[in-house]
């Protein structure tokens, strides 16, 4: 068990936590946070697996760096849409399938 493998395993746990959050939580803000947790888990798996033999590989690191910036942009867009939704409807949960 190297440090990199530990990172990757932590990444899996974070990803699963995020998935559970996205599925179970109704509040949009917390759902966005859970989605970010999923992303962080995926990044950790990428970086961790790439250096599980204790020598870092620059290609996954560069890809994760790109991914982090894109995920920041996606989060900002999600927040902007959540704000708009709240301003229009006054709610922070999406309607369920049964609701009209």
């Amino acid at each position, binding site marked *: 068990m190297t440090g990199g493998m530990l990172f990757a395993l932590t990444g899996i746990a974070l990803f*699963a936590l995020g998935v559970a959050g996205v599925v179970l939580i109704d509040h949009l803000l917390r759902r966005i946070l859970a989605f970010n947790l999923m992303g962080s888990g995926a990044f950790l798996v990428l970086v961790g697996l790439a250096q599980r033999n204790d020598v870092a590989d620059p290609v996954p690191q560069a890809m994760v760096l790109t991914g982090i910036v*894109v995920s920041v942009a996606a989060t900002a867009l999600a927040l902007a849409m959540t704000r708009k939704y709240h*301003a229009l409807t006054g709610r922070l949960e999406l309607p369920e399938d049964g609701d009209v």
Partner: protein
Amino acid sequence: MRRFLVLTLCLVFVGALAVAMLELAPPAIDLRIPVHGQLAQTGVSHPVTAVLLNYRGYDTLLEIAVLLLALLAVLTVTDDAGVTAPHAEHPVLQTLARVAAPLMIVVAVYLLWAGAFRPGGAFQAGAVLAAAAVLLHLVGLLPGWRSPRLPLRIGIVAGFVVFLTVATALLARGALLTYPPATAGILTLLIECALTLSLALILAGLFLILSRDEQAP
């Protein structure tokens, strides 16, 4: 019931993936050797920067395009109404922010310069600059943004435009984003400077445009 089902499935997922990962064979292709082998031709000596701006320049070009798109989308879903004036005015915080902001600019320039030979680069520098803007906004020294006027728009698209111009100019050499080894260093630096400016403005804009109050009280 649903909660129990989801949590069980997640645990099974974690277990299965962890077992698979622990049994994973060593990678068939080791990218470190080609990355380090060609490093002399990239104009920079730090492998991550070389991957970002040279080997996989497409990724970075598309990334700045995605950021630009995100900012445009944020601008379309927020309206121009609302209060932009800062409200928090705490003298201690403001003094600290006034001291910290110039230091953050220095750090950003250092990170940009250091990216050529050690961890650092345009993204980190842009993030520090954006953080400085957010800090100044939070202590009430910088108002939130309405939809950007011409100078700000030029700054926001500069990174993408410069990157795309360099890429297109190099089409004459046969392929997009194939830098000649002799000028690769200076071209990378040029692109990184423009990227830093645009990234800082875009990231700061994502915060400062969204941080406006919805209605005037």
